[in-house]
């Protein structure tokens, strides 16, 4: 009797897990579908995405690399502390 009860419950849990997996797959499928259909049916969005990509390229590849290096880059934490301390105590 006990094993029968256990067996029924395991079956129920297994069935629910399968059901949950199916639901999860459906949710991910719907999310992917949302994006694919959304991008496919864009009108003005295509131009906007092009602008965004060009802008991000200019910001992160050109400006960041060639014009805006981190001034303290390459220094250890200790070196940064000493560098800024020297700047602040010698500047007045």
């Amino acid at each position, binding site marked *: 009797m006990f094993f029968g009860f256990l067996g029924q419950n395991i079956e129920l849990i297994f069935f629910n897990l399968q059901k949950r997996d199916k639901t999860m797959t459906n949710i991910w499928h719907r999310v992917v579908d949302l994006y694919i259909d959304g991008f496919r049916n864009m009108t003005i969005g295509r131009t906007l995405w092009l602008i965004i990509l060009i802008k991000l390229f200019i910001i992160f590849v050109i400006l960041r690399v060639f014009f805006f290096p981190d001034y303290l880059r390459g220094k250890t934490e200790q070196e940064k*502390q000493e560098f800024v301390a020297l700047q602040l*105590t010698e500047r007045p």
Partner: protein
Amino acid sequence: MNIELIDWSRAQFALTAMYHWLFVPLTLGLGIIMSIMETIYHHNSDAFWKSTTQFWQKIFGINFAIGVATGIILEFEFGTNWSNYSWFVGDIFGAPLAIEGILAFFMEATFVAVMFFGWEKVSKRFHLTATWLTAIGATISAWWILVANSWMQHPTGMEFNPDTVRNEMMDFFAVALQPTAIVKFFHSVMSGWVVGAAVVTGISCWFLLKQRHARFAVSSMKVAAIFGLFASLTVAFTGDASGIEVAKQQPMKLAAAEGLRQGSEGAAFSIVPGIEIPKMLSILATHDSNGYVPGINDLVAEGGKRIENGRKAIAALGDYRAAKAEGNDAAAVAARKQLDEYMSDFGYGYLQRPEDLVPPIGLTYWAFRIMTGFGCYLIAFFAAVLLVLYHKKLKLQKWMYVVGFITIPISYIAGQAGWIVAEVGRQPWAIQDLLPVNAAISRLNPTNVKITFSLFLIFFTILLIAEIRILCKAVKNGPELPD
């Protein structure tokens, strides 16, 4: 420090921030307006409101796409041009910006996709939730940025650690919920709402002028005008609260914004040079008609002592670090005691003379007048639009459409002028009382800064032209309304 380097670096930062603020207010304002419109659609299921919402969402999307990531450049500038500043405040400034990046940005980015792509894919209720969360995400994002800015105006909740040469956060809530941050949040975000309302009203006026989509235009104007009147009144009330905060924490900014040379009790408010309202400045600054408001000369006179204290604090920092390096604990303790005693005036030690404490008076004075003048105009404008729309005997006239359209740039100018008052008025400070710009700046070649300034000017202007062209095209095409 090279004045040319400081001026060009400041100009570069100002240029980037001002361009960024062209995009942000419309995102904040239009985000809420389109959410209200979708809420109406959710309640009445009228396809007209769905189309109306979709049109304004398109305008929102164009502005969002062009404006996104323009603020990141400000963070590059912190690391390159203002490296001392970045290190000095890193622990405080990093937390709000990190929260902004992780929480708000991802929230905004996730739900914006559902909002644009999900009309036919998700339920009405879920779509409405996504629209609201997009708008709320943008607002939360603004909250953390304004918390960071408020800390620069009124540093609190931290302790300076001379070992790491950094300010370390001691009380997160003192930073995040200080009155300066709360007032600044409502004042700035509501000014964004005003811009959103002005843009919707202005574009609707254009449709009426062209005799197109009358129902759409009038319905949009009704929502925008109610929203705009509420927002512009809130801006006025929070402006009053902001005045009290500034009077307490940045009295020089207030004195410069008023062009007040000599302080007095019962100080008058200058409308324009030569026209004054007696006692009004004292009321605004202290909520007491006989309250004392210090003038520029009074604050300069106090500056000498504070410069002396600041120099003692800087010398103590040097002594402390030298004593630590030598292992002289007694000397380190003595230096630390002196540093703690004078730390509140630390930044004054970098100033050459008390007159350096005075910000550009003319620019601050006139920017304040433009901000408040246009602010009053906007309250009157939205009240008048509502009156005409709801009064049975009044009718919309052609000249009103022109006024409505002109109100769009006026709302932007008011917001920009507000930031000029806030940022130019607090010069020479990068962080109030702790670090002036001449100590915050990196030793760069001024020519490099001039080159990047020019690059930004070209880059942002191209972006702005692109936005205006795409916006104009979208507006000309108009909404796709049901038959």
